[in-house]
C-alpha cells in the first residue's frame, strides 16, 4: 500500500468467524510479495491464522497442445 492509500485495507473480517480483524486485539499485518499485497491475519476471537493474498489478475493454466478451443 503506497502513501496516500494508507486507509485502504483489502481485508476486514476473519475468514474463520467473521469478526472484524481491525479489532486492536487481533493482528492484521500487511506486506508485499512482488506485485501482490498479502495480509497476515490472526484472529483474537477464534485464533484463525493465515494469509490472504489480494489478486489483481489471475493466470489460468495453459491448454494442452493440440486441444482445439
Amino acid at each position: 500500500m503506497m502513501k496516500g492509500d494508507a486507509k485502504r485495507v483489502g481485508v476486514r473480517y476473519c475468514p474463520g468467524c467473521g469478526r472484524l480483524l481491525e479489532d486492536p486485539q487481533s493482528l492484521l499485518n500487511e506486506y508485499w510479495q512482488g506485485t501482490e499485497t498479502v495480509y497476515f491475519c490472526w484472529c483474537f476471537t477464534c485464533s484463525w491464522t493465515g494469509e490472504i493474498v489480494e489478486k489483481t489478475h489471475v493466470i489460468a493454466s495453459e491448454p494442452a497442445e493440440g486441444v482445439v478451443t
Partner: protein
Amino acid sequence: MLSKVQNERLTRVGPGTPAGRLLRNYWFPVAAVSELTKRPTKKVRLLGEDLVLYRDRAGRYGLLAERCPHRSATLAYGIAENEGLRCMYHGWLFDQQGRCLEQPNEPEDSTFKDRIKTTAYRVEELGGLLFAYLGPEPAPLLPRYDLFIRQEAIRTIGVAVVPANWLQIMENSLDPTHLEWLHGRYFEQLWQLEGRDVRNWAFSKHHLKIGFDLFEYGIIKRRVLVGQTEENDDWAIGHPVIFPNMLRVGDGALHTFQIRVPMDDTHTYHVWYSCFIKPEHVQVPDDYPISFYTVPIQDENGQYITDYVDGQDIMAWASQGEITDRSIEHLGTTDKGIILYRKLVQQEIAKAERGEDTMCMLRDPAKNQCIELPQERDKYSAHASMFKAAREWNTRYAPNLEEILNFLTPRETSLAVE
C-alpha cells in the same frame, strides 16, 4: 503495515496497558550486582515506574517507589540500614515489603508508621545481575537460562539507555537480512574510508534463505548465506529470540544475551551479557570478576557511534523514531519474522488479559535448573571465531577486554573467512 491502534497496543508498557500487563509477567535485569557495591542505591525506571533499587547492610536487595510517601523526596540518595532503606530527608525507614518501620521524629507511642506503606517489588540475583519483578503474585520463577549459570565462562556486562521503544529493538532480532547491510556493507564503507582491508568480512555475505520456527521459549532464527547449505549451523541450529525480550547471539567461543528492558514507552535499558567460553587449556582464576561498563551511544558532536556492530544497531533503532509508526511502513517477504513475532506478542497479550500464564513464565523448579538454549557453534562459517571480533562489538568498552582476549588464544584480531 499495522493500524495505529494495533501499534499502540503492542508498544505501550505503562501500568494498565495491554503490553504493560504482559510484560509485568516477567523478570527484568535492572542492575549489575557490582553497581551496588560502590553505592547502596540506584535509580531505576522500569515499565513506566520510577523506582529505587537498594542493598541494605545485611546484604538484602529491595526495590521501592522512588518517592518517599512522607513528602515525596527521592529515595535514590537514601541511607542503607540493616533492616532496609532510610529516607535521607527525615529518616523514615522502609523494609523490602515497603512497610514503614520507623519515623524517628514522631512521638514514641505513635502508630502513624503502621498506616504507611510504599510500593515495593521483588528482587533476585542471578549471574551477576539483579532482576526485578513488577507483576501479580504468585511470581513466576526467575528463568535460569544457561549463560547465567554455566561455569566455563568469562563474563562481562555492558549497558546503554537507548531512546527507542522496546518492540522495534526486538523486531531487529527477527530481521536477519539487516546483517549483510548494516553490519556488512555499511561496515565495509567505514573501513574503506579508513584504508582497512574489507575483503572477506563474514557479515557481508548475501542471504539465500531465512527461516523462523516457534519453540518452547520463543522463536529460532535461521539463515543460509552464500556458500552455505542447510547443513551449516546457521540453518541447522540457528539461534533463539527468547520471549519476550531477549536475543541470544554468538558462536562456539562467545555467547551473548541481548536483553531489552522496557523503561517506558520511549526508552529501553539494553543489557549485553557476554560470555567468553574458556578453552580447556586456559587457566582463569575462579573468582575472576564480572566486569561492567556503560556503552556510549553518541559522540561529543551528538553523532551516533557507528564503527562497531551494536552502535550500528542502536543508530538504526533510534532513527526509526521513539515509537516507530508502523502504519506507514512497507514490509516485504524478508519481514515475515517480524510479523510472526508481532503475532506472538498479540497472542500472549490476550492470554495475559485472560489471567493465564504466558510464554516463558516458569513455575516448575525441576524445569528451571538450567535451561539450555540452542546456539550455532560455527557462525557465518567463520569457525567459532567471533571472540576475535570483540573489538567490533559493544565488548570493546569492557575495561578488561584486552585481558580477556589475552586469556583466549589464538590472538588473531580480524573475523575473516578463509
